[in-house]
């Protein structure tokens, strides 16, 4: 049994059933950021509040989408043989921002349309002998995709 570990530290919770992206929110002006703002609030008109870590909305609507028919170059760790995948830019209503992510394996561009609802899941990006490295993925809310954790 391989140990699941995040492919990037601190960008999402490891909640099996209800994972969420971890972003930041400015306590002064309410501006969110993903990944977390490292150097203070991004809003130049903000007088500068504290940045609190927050879980971002788990559901959003597709702003746009595409796929990757050709294998991306390293540092992407591609399966052998290469499996094309689909990506979506997803609009989060509360945060008023768009977040990019891969769709769960098995989703094709034909399963998507702009405005359709998706939710966040975790999936395996790649593995080595001891670990499976997890990343966030979007899954159609109607459950058209498979293999979401």
């Amino acid at each position, binding site marked *: 049994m391989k140990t699941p570990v995040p*492919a*990037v530290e601190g960008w999402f919770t490891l909640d099996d059933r209800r994972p969420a992206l971890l972003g930041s929110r400015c306590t002064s*002006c*309410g*501006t*969110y*950021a*993903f*990944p977390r703002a490292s150097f203070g609030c*991004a*809003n*130049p*008109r*903000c007088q500068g509040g504290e940045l609190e870590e927050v879980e971002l909305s788990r559901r959003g609507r597709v*702003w*746009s*989408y*595409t*796929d*990757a*028919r*050709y294998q*991306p*170059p*390293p*540092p*992407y*760790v*591609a399966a052998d043989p290469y499996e094309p*995948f689909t*990506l979506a*830019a997803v609009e989060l209503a509360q*945060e*008023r*921002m*768009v*977040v*990019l*992510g*891969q769709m769960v394996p098995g989703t094709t*561009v034909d399963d998507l*349309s*702009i405005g359709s609802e998706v939710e966040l899941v975790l999936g395996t*990006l790649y593995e080595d002998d001891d670990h499976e490295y997890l*990343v966030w993925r979007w899954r159609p809310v109607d459950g058209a995709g498979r293999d979401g954790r």
Partner: protein
Amino acid sequence: MTDDRRVAVLGVGMHPWGKWGRNFVEYGLVAARDALRDAGIGWEDVQFVSGADTIRNGYPGFVAGATFAQALGWTGARVSSCYAACASGAAAIANARAQILAGLCDVALVVGADTTPKGFFAPVGGERRDDPDWLRFHLLGATNPTYFALYARRRMDCFGATEHDFAAVKVKNARHGLANHNARYRKEVTVDEVLASPVVADPLRLLEICATSDGGAALVLASAEFARRHGAGATVKVSAVSTVTPIFPNTVIEMPNFATDSAVSAAGAERPGFRPSIARAAYEEAGIGPDDVDLAEVYDLSSALELDWYEDIGLCQEGEAEKLLRDGATALGGRVPVNPSGGLSSFGEAIPAQAIAQVCEAVWQLRGQATGRQVEGARVAVTANQGLFGHGSSVVLSR
């Protein structure tokens, strides 16, 4: 801007685009010597060298200005090197222009050149877990065409663009590039051929996505006073250079980001996007508007993106780019030809040289020297381009 605030373009030069596989310095040298010859001045007359950097060719690429100066032979000229991703060439032009306008020098040489790898642009080497450009490849497999395709899909959904429209942009630019000896691809294509090429990032196809190329471009810029003394009073002038950055919140997802800015604090105060702000700043500085423009060179990283630019540089309203294309307005012979050079579609991208190459084409057009692709009677040209990490680039030229 009054006439005296305009900088003269005394000379332009290019090394043809291709996949030559040689050292980038060689391309820069050929372009620089071409530009000096075109200007009718000697290398020793140049007081300031402004290099546009390449980040894929080791240390010499990071100090491009000095690299080219040394290759031409040290003369003691002052130097700067700058990087602004795809907008590096415009940043180098801006540096040279500022030196001239400040009265610190009379004559400056701007050079950019690149040698590129095959296939997708990958992040530069090393494992850098705090670099968004490294992370987007690692975590998402998000290549540059990923982002181009997101915009293309948006156009289809929001404005009714079709695959045929995207292919028609490629057909137009391929035709424009046919007579351009500096272009890498000089072959006519049909809509059917474009649509038969494999999908890379749905809805974009191989023939609709800009390749990576080797190439070099250079300009000799001079003060209006020097140009007059040099007997080049009727030269093409640079009326404006825009190197603007976005205004928060930037609500369009852009390379290499994972997310847009959050617009929570700006609710009810919608701001124009970044791309439209780039040329607008140039027009304002030049004191002109899009109606004054006779031709444009825009960054067609994808055929679909060229349609976005029509709107972003004000050639038409949002959502009307497909109509402009279908009416033939942006083809040679139309109301305002776009990418008469053949564009990135015919060149491929040589990053630090590309914004300079756009200006070279504009100069040839305004001088009436664009053999086989001339926009008749052109007096005003605009270039537009955007580099990742928030770099705008737009130059207005006039005669």
